[in-house]
């Protein structure tokens, strides 16, 4: 499901029609006429035919609507805010996080904790990074504020856990290095908008 398709959920544009229920019969004769008409009109058999048609469609026409959930999953909206993912740089494989600490600052439920240090190249690197999913309200501010598109909301929405405080470490959320080719650029919450390229203006160098 694409973003544009998903977003079109406006009620009122679907051309609903009101049913004409007609008048209720008042006199006995009218009631009798209505019953006779409904009995011999075959309205009941229309209902039977509809269910039989659906059964045929289910069995032979591939109209099944069941999703066998733990084995199959529905596609979720790209803007769905599920468990966070940490992305890597596609070229080098190094993680994108630069340890700026913006996500920790902006987190309104104070569930992100991070610690940084300088590595041997005097580059800042993340030494500790946890998200307490018992506290996280999945507001998406961290993904929105991240300047490097490093922390995003991924597709994993099964958030049940055995404890109230369930921490995720940096390594749990990070894309495994051997699955780097499977990493997808995130176009959802906090990402640049689909028409971002159109909005880019040339930097006026004259300034």
């Amino acid at each position, binding site marked *: 499901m694409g973003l544009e398709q998903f977003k079109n959920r406006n009620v009122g544009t679907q051309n609903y029609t009101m049913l004409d229920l007609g008048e209720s019969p008042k006199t006995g004769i009218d009631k009798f006429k209505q*019953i006779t008409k409904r009995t011999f009109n075959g309205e009941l058999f229309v209902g*039977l035919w509809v*269910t039989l048609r*659906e059964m045929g*469609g*289910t069995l032979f026409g591939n*109209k*099944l609507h069941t999703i*066998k959930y733990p084995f199959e999953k529905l596609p979720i909206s790209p803007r769905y805010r599920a468990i966070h993912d940490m992305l890597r740089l596609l070229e080098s494989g190094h993680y994108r996080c630069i340890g700026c600490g913006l996500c920790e600052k902006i987190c309104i439920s104070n569930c992100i904790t991070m610690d940084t240090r300088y590595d041997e190249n005097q580059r800042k690197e993340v030494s500790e990074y946890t998200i307490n999913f018992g506290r996280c309200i999945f507001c998406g501010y961290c993904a929105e504020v991240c300047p490097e598109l490093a922390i995003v909301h991924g597709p994993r929405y099964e958030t049940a856990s055995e404890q109230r405080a369930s921490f995720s470490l940096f390594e749990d959320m990070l894309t495994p290095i051997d699955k780097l080719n499977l990493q997808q650029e995130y176009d959802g919450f906090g990402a640049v908008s689909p028409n971002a390229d159109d909005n880019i203006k040339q930097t006026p160098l004259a300034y």
Partner: protein
Amino acid sequence: METTLVQNLPEVTAAGVIIKAIIILAVISAIAGFGTFIERKVLAFMQRRLGPMHVGPHGILQLVADGIKLFTKEDIVPQNANPIIFKVAPVITAATAFIALAAVPVFPDFTIPNWIPLLGGVFVPSIAADVNIGILFVLGMMAAGLYGPLLAGMSQANKWGIIGSARTAIQFLSYEVVTGLSILAPIMLVGSLSFVDFNDYQAGGVGSWLIWQQPVAFVLFLIAGFAETNRTPFDLLEHEAEVVSGYATEYSGMRWGMFFIGEYANMITVSIIAAVVFLGGYSVEGIGWLTIILKVAFFFFLMLWVRASWPHIRPDQLMWLCWKVLMPIAVINIVITGIVMMV
């Protein structure tokens, strides 16, 4: 009028009757269990679902799992209930359903082949107890079956139960009248109350089926049969949306399971009656016994089909339908049948 005594056939022995009874008990219990699976599957397909899928291939072992669950569930008797009646009530439902099956022909007569040890040569009759008044006996036993829900609802000290049993009383009492009157017209035509005579009367192929002579009686019997077996357009006794579970509110485990088995056995009984009385029953030669299975399966499917298709009706509509519509039509049908027979 010929009698229903079995002529030119091997003598009906006690062993044959016992074998028949065991066949009925085993087969119908198994079908009643299997029926729940079929019902869930058919309803699921009609609603574009899959139904039970995970126990066994395509969920076919679901009934085993359900059985294990029912048997091992804790057996609860509510504190203020009347314990004896509470425990007896489910047994009444199951027992009357199976006793009614004793007088119903399930398969044609057959003799067990001689090569089978111990039982070879035993003649198994088509009906376990070929009483002269087969149809009336079955209707009477199904009438006695109303005590199951009735006593269950009254003994459990629960207002939903009381409402359920009051509905049982009015629904079963009213629709017994329609069942009896609707089946009276075929009885007049055949001139016998025995199922075997009904079967023989329609032995001349599809053209001699009684449904062509008595279409009104057939429709009336189907409607009343749905009401007597508590199927969907008339499932007021335990309709979840209105009375929590009606008479079965306080029941759990195998006691509830017995209500369930009784209901399914009753469905099979009504299907067999409809098949034998109106649709020609079984034929004796060859694999004619397969035809009755097909007919019974059709009626069983019809019950599930209707459940998936139609909404259920209010209690006042139920009474109105019975006393102001169906019963006059049944009486008129009988009168017309009588006049046609006299002329």
